[in-house]
């Protein structure tokens, strides 16, 4: 490797030294714990020929490269979060060297501590709600005998769709409120781009919930109960995850 940098995966504290034994960084590099005062930076060395500014600009346009980096990033963050409270970084946060990492973390130390305090003993859960596609495709209509009849049937179909939409959205709201009972924080996100998710069904709710470990069962039970009352919806619960949505810096 010629010029190198330090890739920052997450900030944590009290992480045991063997917690990262099962994961690796990029290009076979080890993931290291860099002590920064009472915090720890989880980093690995990267080659700037691949992770430098110019290289990144090109590589970030390559979905295969992005996927590989994203999965490695997520795997390392998971390993950290499984062993201690973790503040995950967004993808590609890179410093010139260890000292650069330390200096930056020192500057935002208080915010980092607040973020870690917020997520200690808690995990993130994702809940996505889809409208199950109609089982019966549009029944073949007899050829409309008049323009009026044609427009009327179009309007009826649009009304039915709108009613279904409103209905689904109010359920999503209901679900969100009920789930928020077992949580300490929640975020409602934009529905995923179907081009990215590859899902045919329409997503009507995409929420992240910060749930204390001891309330995870209650959270799942609530979602199940709500879901079973609405067989026309698909409710997908994912978790537990590292707290990507909640270990955020409040200032700066």
């Amino acid at each position, binding site marked *: 490797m010629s010029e190198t940098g330090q890739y920052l995966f997450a900030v944590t504290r009290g992480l045991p030294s063997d917690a990262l034994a099962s994961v690796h960084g990029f290009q076979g590099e080890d993931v290291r714990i860099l002590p920064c005062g009472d915090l720890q930076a989880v980093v690995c060395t990267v080659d700037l020929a691949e992770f430098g500014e110019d290289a990144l600009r090109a590589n970030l346009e390559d979905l295969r490269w992005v996927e590989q980096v994203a999965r490695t*990033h997520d795997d390392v963050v998971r390993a950290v979060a499984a062993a201690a409270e973790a503040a995950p970084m*967004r993808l590609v946060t890179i410093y010139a060297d260890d000292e650069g990492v330390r200096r930056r973390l020192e500057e935002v130390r208080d915010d980092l501590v607040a973020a870690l305090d917020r997520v200690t003993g808690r995990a993130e859960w994702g809940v996505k709600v889809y409208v199950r596609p109609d089982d019966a495709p549009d029944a073949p209509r007899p050829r409309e005998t008049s323009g009026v009849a044609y427009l009327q049937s179009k309007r009826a179909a649009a009304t039915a769709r709108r009613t279904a939409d409103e209905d689904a959205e109010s359920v999503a709201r209901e679900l969100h409120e009920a789930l928020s009972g077992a949580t300490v924080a929640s975020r409602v996100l934009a529905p995923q781009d179907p081009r*990215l998710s590859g899902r045919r069904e329409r997503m009507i709710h995409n929420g992240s919930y910060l749930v204390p470990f001891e309330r995870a069962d209650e959270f799942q039970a609530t979602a199940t109960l709500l879901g079973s009352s609405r067989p026309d919806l698909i*409710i997908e*619960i994912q978790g537990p995850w590292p707290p990507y949505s909640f270990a955020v810096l409040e200032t700066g």
Partner: protein
Amino acid sequence: MAVEYRRPGQTLPGHPSSDSLADILERVLDKGIIIAGDIRVNLLDIELPTVKIRLLVVSVDKAQEMGIDWWRNDPMFNARAEELESENRQLRQRLREIEGSSDEEESR
């Protein structure tokens, strides 16, 4: 059954996550702490064949606010950085003037 549980690959040794790419990208690109590194990543709307990805931008001004100024000693970046600093100072002053005058109007 209307509810599906998808447990992501737990942190078992050597057991990588089997989550969908959509879910992983949503986490690592749209979430997580935004903290400027030394390497500046540009904000781009990248149109890939099937995907649109948004990335973080760190402007020279914001980076300096956060104490990152490694380019100061680099002659290639020096002149431009100073221009931007000066421009930003002027813009901030102008903004203060505008906000100051609108505050006065509101309290009337």
